[in-house]
């Protein structure tokens, strides 16, 4: 019982970070980035490259890799999604076209990674030792990853809440036209948010790869669906929703994994379906 309590909480903290990048991207730019999981995988692979070539610790390597993914995110936003926003006549058209573009991105990232690294799973093992938490053996790297996830999530919360950039982002979400009138370049804000979302995904992917050594070029879709379930559960664009959704799914995932490891993804999907049909706004949605 205690192991479920602790394991679920740790997983929940990590899941929160997994979902937060996608939530930020969707919240600010209104583009549902289905390639989110692939950005995570990309981050993990970049960390892997730096660990292998510079023999750094994974925790240091991800600090180099994630900014590169940030740049990629900004470039993709400017090259693709900015044009899509201009070309699309209605919100539905934009949603649909950006969905397809994201699938395209996902294909490209997955297969480029496959072409370079091959089909074998990789990982960046780090701090792989057991410690005692309330008499319960726990893996140190999981606790470190959960701690970092919480720290990053809180940092993002403060960024959005109390800084000028956060204010600008929130203004862009609330009133895109009004924000432009008061002199905000919303295209810059969109590019920045998309990049920031990609950056957070890369960190999440790298942290995941320090715990589980099962990242391979095609594992992006799984992460995308976990993240999607969390933000649908919590409410799209809601920070607290991401937090609550992350923990709920963390427990759900941990429990099903414990009793029937083969069905854990089915449970995630079924949960997503039920949420979409019963309450598409999510728990914290407006």
């Amino acid at each position, binding site marked *: 019982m205690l192991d479920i309590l602790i394991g679920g909480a740790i997983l929940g903290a990590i899941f929160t970070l997994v979902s937060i990048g996608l939530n930020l991207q969707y919240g600010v730019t209104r583009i549902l980035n289905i390639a989110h999981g692939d950005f995570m995988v990309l981050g993990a692979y970049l960390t892997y490259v730096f660990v292998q070539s510079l023999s750094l610790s994974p925790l240091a390597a991800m600090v180099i890799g994630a900014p590169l993914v940030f740049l990629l995110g900004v470039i993709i936003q400017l090259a693709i999604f900015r044009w899509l926003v201009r070309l699309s006549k209605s919100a539905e058209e934009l949603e649909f076209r950006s969905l397809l*573009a994201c699938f*395209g991105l996902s*294909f490209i990232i997955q297969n480029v990674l496959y072409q370079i690294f091959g089909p074998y799973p990789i990982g960046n093992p780090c701090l792989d030792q057991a410690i005692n938490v309330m008499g319960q053996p726990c893996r140190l790297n999981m606790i470190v990853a959960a701690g970092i996830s919480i720290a990053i999530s809180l940092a993002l919360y403060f960024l959005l809440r109390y800084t000028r950039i956060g204010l600008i982002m929130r203004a862009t979400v609330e009133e895109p036209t009004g924000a432009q009138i008061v002199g905000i370049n919303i295209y810059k804000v969109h590019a920045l948010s998309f990049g920031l979302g990609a950056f957070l995904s890369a960190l999440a992917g790298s942290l995941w790869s320090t715990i589980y050594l099962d990242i391979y070029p095609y594992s992006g879709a799984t992460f995308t669906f976990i993240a999607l379930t969390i933000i649908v559960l919590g409410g799209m664009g809601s920070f607290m929703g991401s937090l609550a959704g992350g923990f709920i799914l963390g427990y759900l995932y941990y429990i099903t994994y414990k009793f029937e490891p083969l069905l854990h993804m089915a449970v995630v999907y079924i949960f997503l379906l039920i949420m*979409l049909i019963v309450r598409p706004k999510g728990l914290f949605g407006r």
Partner: protein
Amino acid sequence: MNEKQELWKSLLGFLALIAVLTGAPYLLNNIYYLNVLRDVIFWVALSVSWYLFSGLTKYVALGSAAFFGLGLYFTAKVLNYWPVLPFPVVVILAGLLNFTIALAVGLISLRLKGIYFAIVTFGIAEIVKVIFDWWEIRITGTLGTYLPIFSDITTYYSILTTSLTSLVLVTLLRRSKFGLALRMIGESEETAAHTGVNTSLYKTIGFAISAACIGLVGASCITISPYTNTRIAFGSRYSFYPAVMTLLGGAGTPYGPVIGASALSLINEYLSVAFPQVFQIILGALLIIIVLVMPNGIMGIVEKFKTLGSREGEKKKED
């Protein structure tokens, strides 16, 4: 009168096409080209079946793999456990099974719109796959299924038969009142509802028929290889390729899926032997290009040139 003449013309063309395709094994006299032709027919059938629902109503379904795999797996299992049943009967049963399941899936998922519908259908395909995985590992204790071996000619004819059946069914439906209702839903669902179209009924049945056709084609695919497993049968390419092929060809016309599927499956054939990953990368890039530059696909560009070419068209446009 004019309309009738056109109908006869297209009917004659269709019969000629059937004759050529039926005679193809003897005309080509080459197993490799026959298999390439088979793949083209197969993808055209899948894309056109997908187009019947998603192209007309603009509800983009990304779960074809579920129905394709269900058809294939059902047929494979039945042929293994009750070999007395003749193959064609099993294929028809697979189509009916898909129809029923898709009715249920449609009832649940068609309450959603736009990207939510796309996500839900994609999720359903994954759920079905995971459940079959679980069933195989936990209950039967086997991975995949072995199947009887068929000759290339038999494979060609069985896939040709199911594909043509689907194509004829789809074409007839598209031209009927039913197809008109689906197209109306695609243009504006509210208007359709106001004019007395029972939109949810039409959507659900359209979705089920499209799924049944996909399942029918999937069922005939057990003749291709003597072994199948969940990764082959429920591969997500069966969800994505029909959508990409239709969009490449142009989702606005019935010729779009035919052209897109032929083009992409030939490119796939050319690349897949040496560089399967390169094909996927091209597919991804193509998706982005379609979305950015040619939202109406190849047919959209053709139409544009047609109207540019003739001054009459230009004038008509101005009027």
